[in-house]
Each structure stands twice: as C-alpha cells, then as structure tokens.
C-alpha cells in the first residue's frame, strides 16, 4: 500500500523544478563569473549544494504523509515567529538589513522558511474553520497569522518579503472561500491607510516608490539598478548576448546581480528565447501545483498547494516585474534562480509537500 502511492507521483512537477534549479545554478555561475578573479565563484558551489540538499528535503517530504504536518503546524509556526524575533536581536546585518542568523558556519534566513510555515498554519486554521469562513473572527485571526510574521519581517526591514505573506494570505483565503466582502473591506482599509503608510514609511522605501515612478530622476542613485536592469534585459534582444557574454552583467553594470537582479542576467545573455523558456518552466511548475490543488480532496491539502503556488507566482511576477520596469524595486528574489540557500531549500521542500498532497489525495479525509 505504501509503495502504491508513488504511482501518483507527478514527474512533471519534479522535472520543471529540477530544470529551474539547474538553470538557477548556471545563472548564478554567470552572474558571479570572475567576480573576484576566480572562474567559479564560491557562491556557485554553495547554490549547488543547497540544490542537492533541497532535493533530499523534497524527496523526504514527498514520501511523508502531509497530514502529519497538520499536527505540527502550530509548533512550526511558533518556531518561525520565534526565529523571526531572534533575528532582530542576534541577526547578521547585510546590505542594511538584519535578515540572517549565523549558525555553525551556515547562514539561515528565517523569513524564507517562515513562508512555508505561514502556509501550513493558515491552511490548517482555515481547513479547521472551513464552515465558519463568514465569521469576522475567523477571517481576522487568519489575517493575523500572516500579518504577525509580516510585521516582524518589516522590522528587519524587508518590505518585499513582508508583502509575500500578504500575497499568500490573499490566495489561500480566496481559495478557502472567504466572502468577497472581506477582500473589498481590506481594499478599502488599504486605500484609507495608504496616506498613513506613506508618512510612516522609511525614507528609502519612499524613495524607491518615487524612483519607480521616474527612474531617470536619479539615474546614478536609486534609479540606477532599475535603469541598468531594463537596459540589460532589453539589450539581450531575441537571442541574447550569449552565456557569460552579457556586457551589462560581466562588466558589473548590474549590482548584486546574483540575487534580486539575476533575471536581468538571464534576459541579457539568453534573450527573449531564454526568458521564454524560463517562463514556460515556471508556468509548467505553477500549473502542476494548481493541478495538485485541484486533485486534492480535502481543504488542508488544497490550501497548502495554493499557498505554495501563490508564493512562487507572487515572487516570480514581482521579481521579473521589477527587472522589466513594471513594478517598483522591492528586494524579492526570483524563486529557485536567485542565489539564496534558505529560499531554495524551502521552495523545494514545499514542492515536496505538493507531491505528497498529490500522492495522498485519496487516503485521508475529514
């Protein structure tokens, strides 16, 4: 009986994920090529190791019956809130934000892992109260489940990641069936709060929004990355400048191009052909994830899938959007492509849970 479930394993989900991870390692290689005089930057090895680690976590979580996770959802959530609090106290400051916890030579970014745990907790909570979704208290508590880590992340400060939790909440509560009036209400509150938010924003955040509206206002300062990213992507043309041959990337006109701006390297070196391929892989991954949601016969699994798909889709859209000048620059990495160990392992593990949902869809029910 236990081996029978592997017959339902979704190979396309695994394939698209593995291709994206391998592609990501290749792009990190290009983005860091001869950055400090060596051909293969240490970051490339690290990203590859994280990829292998992610695959192991993927396999383990695929095999694990995801219902077990429901039992630990709150414990994991509590742990994630704790570590987000901890990072504010002992975290390592890098690029002006306190995001990393140093642990035995490894860095670990709690806000990435927290995405999965928020999805777990939200799904568990909404599945449990699926018949009471019209109650303001239920909707309110679900919102707090996402808002609490978002608030802690905002203190780091990491505005971009904080918005990911909101994206997850929106997608999960929407699919769970929360009445539309709550979303409209939230929209109204957001519009009313916008002026207040503007006034309480940090200077750099306000500047980023202003710069987004007009990057040319400060071409060498805040607008620099946005403009150079646009030039990089555009200059790739239809077929790209060739792997390791993008002048924008290889001559470092792009900054921190192995992280948030890695898409610009893809765009420049591989061109429209390359980004189309990458988008197709993402589309395949997301559609297989949504299929998992559809085949799941119970709310918890379905919401888990939606949450994971939402997180990946949101980051994809926001990251590419900022690289192509459609959205303001917020520090959100491109899932599985940008350099970042915690993020990579978390997403691969999350996709492992999706496989588990697919494989265990018939076995349990409430």
């Amino acid at each position, binding site marked *: 009986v236990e081996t029978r479930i592997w017959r*339902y394993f*979704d*190979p*396309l989900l695994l394939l698209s994920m593995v291709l994206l991870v391998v592609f990501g390692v290749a792009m990190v290689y290009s983005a860091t090529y001869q950055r400090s005089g060596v051909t293969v930057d240490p970051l490339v090895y690290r990203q590859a190791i994280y990829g292998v680690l992610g695959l192991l976590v993927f396999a383990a979580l695929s095999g694990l019956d995801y219902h077990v996770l429901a039992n630990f959802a709150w414990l994991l959530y509590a742990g994630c809130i704790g570590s987000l609090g901890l990072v504010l106290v002992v975290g390592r400051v890098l690029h002006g934000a306190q995001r990393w916890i140093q642990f035995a030579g490894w860095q670990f970014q709690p806000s990435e892992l927290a995405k999965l745990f928020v999805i777990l907790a939200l799904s568990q909570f909404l599945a449990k109260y699926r018949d009471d979704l019209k109650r303001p208290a239920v909707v309110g508590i679900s919102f707090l489940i996402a808002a609490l880590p978002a608030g802690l992340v905002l203190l780091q400060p990491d505005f971009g990641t904080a918005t990911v939790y909101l994206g997850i909440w929106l*997608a999960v509560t*929407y*699919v*769970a*069936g929360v009445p539309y009036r709550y979303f409209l209400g939230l929209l109204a509150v957001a519009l009313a709060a916008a002026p207040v938010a503007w006034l309480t924003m940090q200077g750099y955040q306000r500047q980023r929004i202003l710069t987004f509206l007009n990057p040319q206002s400060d071409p*060498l*300062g805040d607008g*620099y990355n946005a403009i150079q990213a*646009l*030039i*990089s*992507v*555009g*200059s*790739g*043309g*239809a077929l790209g400048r060739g792997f390791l041959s993008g*002048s*924008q990337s290889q*001559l*470092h*006109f792009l*900054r921190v191009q192995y992280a948030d701006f890695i898409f610009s390297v893809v*765009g*420049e070196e591989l*061109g*429209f052909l390359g*980004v*189309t391929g990458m*988008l197709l892989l*993402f*589309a395949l991954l997301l*559609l*297989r994830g*949504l*299929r998992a*949601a*559809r*085949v799941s*016969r*119970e*709310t918890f699994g*379905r919401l888990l899938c*939606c949450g994971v798909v*939402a997180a990946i*889709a949101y980051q*994809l*859209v926001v990251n*590419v*959007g900022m690289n*192509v000048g*459609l959205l303001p620059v917020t520090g959100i990495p491109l899932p599985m492509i940008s350099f970042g160990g915690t993020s990579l392992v978390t997403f691969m593990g999350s996709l492992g849970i999706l496989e588990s949902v*697919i494989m265990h869809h*018939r076995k*349990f*029910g409430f």
Partner: protein
Amino acid sequence: MEPITSLHDPFDALDEEPVEEDKSHQPRLFWITAFVILCVVALWVRLYQLQVLQGPDFRSQADNNRFREVKIPAPRGVIYDRNHEVLARNRPSYSVGIIPADMPDPSSRVAVLLRLSQILGIPVAQLNQAVAQDGASPFSFIWLAMNVPETVAFQIEERHRELPGIHVQLDPTREYVLGPSAAAFLGYIGRISDAQYQRLKDDAVHKYSPEDVIGETGLERTFESLLRGEPGAEQMEVDATGRQVRSLGVTSPTPGQNLILSIDAGLQRQITEVLSAGINRYRSASVVAIDPRNGQVLAMVHLPTYDDNLFASGISDADYQRLISDPGHPLVNGAVGAAYPPGALFHVVTAAAGLETGVLTTGAKLDCPGFITVPNRFDPTVGTRLLDVKAFGQQDLVSALADSCNVFFYQVGAGDPNGRTAGVGVDGLAHFAQMFGLGEPTGIDLIEEVSGTVPSIRWKRQNLNQDWVSMDTYQMAVGLGYLTATPIQMANVASAIANGGTLYRPQLVHQTTDDRGGVISEFKPETIRTLSVSPAGLAQIRQGMIDGASAGNTPIGTAFDGASKAAAVDGWPVGGVSSTVEFGVPDASGRLPTHGWFIGFGPADQATIALAVVVEQGTGPGDAAGIAHQIFAYYHTAAKG
C-alpha cells in the same frame, strides 16, 4: 506526458470513493489559475516589447555603458628663445579627480571622499565642495587636486578598489621658466571658459573639451592653434567602475608645434633686471628691443608684471583679485598695450617730413632763441609763448635733433609764427607719422596691441568736436598734444631709421618646429612699407641721433647737453633721442610729473639693435637714456663675448 485536464486524469479514474463532494472551491481555483496564467503572459508580452521590439535601442544603451572614448591630450608646443633656451615647457604633474558616474552609489561617496581626504591631506569639506560645485555631466572628470606628489598618486592607484570613481590623471602643467620676466608677451594658459568652449567645440582638428586648457593671453593665445596640436583618443571597454577592461584602438595625438622665438633670453633677463632696479620710482616701465635688419623682437619687458606660473596650475581667486585690482595693471603689457605722447622722439618724424616736403633744405639753419610765440587766432597781437629748455641759437637739423631743440621743430612742423615761412602742417605731419607706423598696430603677434593716435583736423572734429587750431600743430610737431605712440611703434621707428628706411612688422616668432626639432615653418621678415624718405635725409636724422648720444661738441660749436647722451657707451657708438613729457597735475613745488622716453640704435654704423624705453612717471629726464645705456652696454659686451 500526463494530461492535465480532469477528463483524462488518472486520479479520477482511480477515484472509487470520493472523500469530498463539495465542489464550491472550483470556481475560485479556476480564477486563480487564470490569474496566474494572465500574469505570466503579461510578463511575456512585456519581454517581447523590451527585447524584440526595443532590443536594438537597449543594445546601444548597453554599448554606451561599456564603450568609452578617452581623449589623449596632445603635448602643448614648447616655446624656446632664439638660442633654443626653454621659455615655456610642460612638466608632468598628477591630478586627482572624480568621475561621478563611476561611483557605485551616492551614499558610499561620503566614505570614498573621506578615504581620499586622508590620502591627499585635503579637508573632506573642500572635496565635497569641489564635487558639488561642478555641474558638468556625471561622466566628466572633476578636478579635486592638482600637482599631486607621485607617491600619493601611486597610492591612490593601488587602492582603486576602495576608491571607486576616483581617477588619477597625468596632466602636463605649463612651466614658464623665466616667470615674470617674459610673462608680458608669453601670456598664460587657463581652463577654457564656457563661452570659449561654445565657440570652439565644433573645431574638428583641435577637439576642445570643457576640461581643456587654452591660451588666454600673449603668444599662448596668438599661437594657440599651433601650440595645441591635435588630441588623440583611445577607444576602450570599461567596467562599471570605469576601469579599462581592454583597449579597442588608439589614435595617437599630434603634438603641438614648438615656437622658436626671436627673443634673446639673456637680453630679456638683463633688461628685466635693469628695469626692476628702478621700478620703485616709476609707475611702470617698458622696453622693446628690435633687430633693425629684420624686425625680429629681441626683448620685450614691461614692469610691473606677474608670474604666469600662477595661472599654469590654476590661479587662486585671491591671487587673481590681487592682480586685477593692482593699480600698476600688471596684467597689461604696456610695451604694446599702452600709448604715451612721444614728445621729442617725434622730432625724427618732423625732421623727415620737413626734408621730404622741402620745408627744410639740407644744412639750413633756423634761429632757436629758447622760445616761440604763437599768436592767438582771434587776436594776433596776443601770443602764447612756448618755452624751450634753453636758447640754442642757430641750429641745423642734425644739431637740433642732437639737442632735442623744440623751437627748431616747431618752425619745421608748423612754420614761422609770423607767417614768414610755412611749416609741414598738420596733414603732412600726420602723413609722415602714419608712414612711420604710428596710429596703426604694428601687427606684432600679440592681440593686446593698441594703435595709439595720430591726430588730424578730422580726428579732432570727430573725437573732440573742436576745431584744429595752430597751437595743435605746434604741439604735434614736437610729439605732444593728442599724438600718442606705443613703445613697440617707437622701437620700430628707431629700427626703420637705423636700417635705412624699411619698416618691418615686428615678429616674436622666428620658426616653428615639430617634436623632433625639424623646422615646420619659418617666419620671414615682413616689410610693412619702405619709408619715402631719401637716404641722405635718413642719414642726417641718424647723424643727429648719433651726435645726441655722444659726448662732445656739435658740428656748429655748441656742446651737446641733451639727456640722450646718458645712453652713450664707451667704444661702441650708438644713436638716440630722448624726451621728457610732462603730464597730469603739478606737485607741491609746481613741477609736473614726467614720462621719460628714449629711442635709439647701436652700433651707429651697422645697427643690430633698435630700442625703445619708456618709464611712466620717471623722476628725471635721464632715466630712460640711462636704462638704454645699460642695455646697450650689456648687448655690446654679450655680442663681443
């Protein structure tokens, strides 16, 4: 491949007992799927627009980022004296500056400037100010420090990773070896002004850029287009911090042409020394020495002056304010840029005019009682008495010149006051003054030159709206009144008399050479005109000047006691005439301040040097001739040595 649609979904087939019949979530799952697809398609459309439709535009923007053309300035031509002694050269000096576009971001600029401030030892506030003041493009080089020591320059280069955007440039700095002595005619270079740049930016040969230097005054300005040369350029690929990744091609600069001047640096130095010794007593002093055989300028000194090296490395505001507010006008080259009444020097012109118009015949004598009375034009019974220094008695042309006898030349120029004989008249005097080159620029290679004034009836009407009166003619005959001349013009007069009547265009530049010393062009002597004065007439004028500058007796028996004899040099006969011109307001003892003039030539028979000396507000009539004596003495000794 596994089909996605639920119709063929294998899981549905295996679905024996559905655990959940509630399908209420399905519409929302559909919409969220549609939304994800929509978002991905939107990104894809945007990428199509950027990469396929606008790709070429962005491609050229990316190329603008990485390709940079760096101009290689051409070494400015070196200026030598006639003996190939260096007068102006280029000394390499390190400049440190910033290219804002190469800095990673403005927030780190503070840290970079702080580090740089420690290396350079310049307060960071000063660096900030320099960066803030410059409104040029972010890709241009903003000077932060010039003349930086080599060790400091190397240190900055070594630490370039910590100092993004900071660049070290090897800039040639102009060095004027003689400094103040030659500043009056060499001039100086300075940073090009906005107005100059706007005028010159389209010059395809000289390729000016807003950071360039340009000749501002003197020969540096006149010969700018030869001295500058043709800048080259290096096309290179650079990285984001502006460091060169590889060179794509170099166009070598063509160095500027060197100038070989006719100036004799030794004479120039000597004259500067002589004038400096007495400059405290004068408002200003100028000397021009010309070779009468070809018009080449051997020396040109004007004091007070300035050190042109101050300008070469960027003059400070304080220094510049001090120079332009100095009452002695040190920035004006008075040797060509100031005109004074020549006084008795003009006797030589009146003499030539008298001889050529037939007013004066050779050997004719005129009575010089020490004064002349000019009748009032309305009431001839009332006269104005013009006094001479003394009564010279009977004078001929030669002795009158030697004695600087004004009364003689009053009569030649304006006639006998009682109408017994006619003089040359204002028109004739003006004609001969112009023939000798007065009233027009000599055409020397300095745009600072002024014309001076040769008055005429028409001139007075136009400029003063007054009638010409006979007194004006008397004044003009002895070089007073409205007549003014520059030292270079008067030196040229002396030169033309000495060489037998050829008025040359004075030239400062003799040759131009390339960077290997090969002659590119030779400046041949240029004749402005040949004087319409007979050789015999000129010989008499020369003789008068020679007698004037000698000790002894005149041919008609009186002892020379003119001021010109102070110029005499033992064993080396010279000719000369001096004058003392009163001007301004009398002092407490009723005496007017005076300008002292001298023109002359030597050696008397075959002159190789013609001189003009003027001391503005000199203390005595012998000043100018005394200065000429020292110059002649040095020149004679140096020529012998």
